[in-house]
């Protein structure tokens, strides 16, 4: 029973992260939501008795895909409908 509740919680978390990744205007948060999807997917693979795939999804899906997305955002534009150069990331930090 607990097992079932946990799986349903994870599924809802994953679908929520997917919708958030699509709707969010700020690309950095959208990319982090993609990382969350991969994280939940790793847990689901572990529950479906697939340890190899969970390890791969964790190593590639969470770590490297998120990093490559963030580096791309670093080199292009942060907000979705934004035209100017990328110095807004620095301004957002200060």
């Amino acid at each position, binding site marked *: 029973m607990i097992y079932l509740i946990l799986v349903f919680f994870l599924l809802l978390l994953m679908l929520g992260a997917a919708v958030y990744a699509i709707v969010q205007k700020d690309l950095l948060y959208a990319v982090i939501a993609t990382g969350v999807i991969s994280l939940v997917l790793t847990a689901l693979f572990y529950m479906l008795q697939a340890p190899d795939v969970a390890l791969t999804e964790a190593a590639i899906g969470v770590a*490297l895909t998120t*990093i490559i997305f963030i580096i791309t955002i670093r080199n292009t534009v942060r907000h979705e409908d934004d035209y100017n150069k990328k110095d807004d990331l620095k301004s957002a930090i200060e």
Partner: protein
Amino acid sequence: MKKFIVILMLAVLGYYLGTTFYSLGFGDARFEHGVKDYYLENTVSQLNVANTITSIIVSFRGFDTLGEVTVLFLAATALGGILYKKRHHIGDRSVLFPASSIVRSGSKLLFPAVILLGVYVFIHGHLSPGGGFQGGTIVATGFLLMLLAYQDFTVSHHILSFVESFAGIFFVAIGLLGFINGGTFLQNFMPVGTLNDLFSGGVIPIIYILVGFKVAAELTGLIYTVLNEKD
């Protein structure tokens, strides 16, 4: 208007996918004597490898993995080609601001541990879950950590392409060696030790360690190319 058509199309696609996969059944054996039963029997009897998935990936369907490694090699080369800039104005690292002292000291501590974990994962590919792809990626994340923490930490492209090319050449060479005593391409020509000890499974751990090196070198090169992109 365009959104409405797309949503309509997605609804139709979702309906068909849903009916197919719900009627497909979940968790019950759907076919009587499939390929998996042969794999499950023969990983232990003929190959003495504990991890069935590793034996499928490297020995039963080894040709897939050769194609797989080529896909990664092509992606790394394509990235170098698409983002190619003249030698003299390679941008400095596109890291916005120097890493804080916590990150710098932490990563100096963590770097050897992450590399050790990665190497452990791809050496024990045929015993425990994990293998060439997973271990190589973990090693690449270790290098990534150092690249982000230290501006002056550089990875020389020559060494990376050496490791990448040598691992690839040895992989194909082992495949060709399979022909020697009348066998076929990628055949397991080494003795297959006893189950669950480090040197079991003949050629399989050697191939998976080579894949681990190749994936580690490739992904580090890939990240290095994308990271040094500041125009």
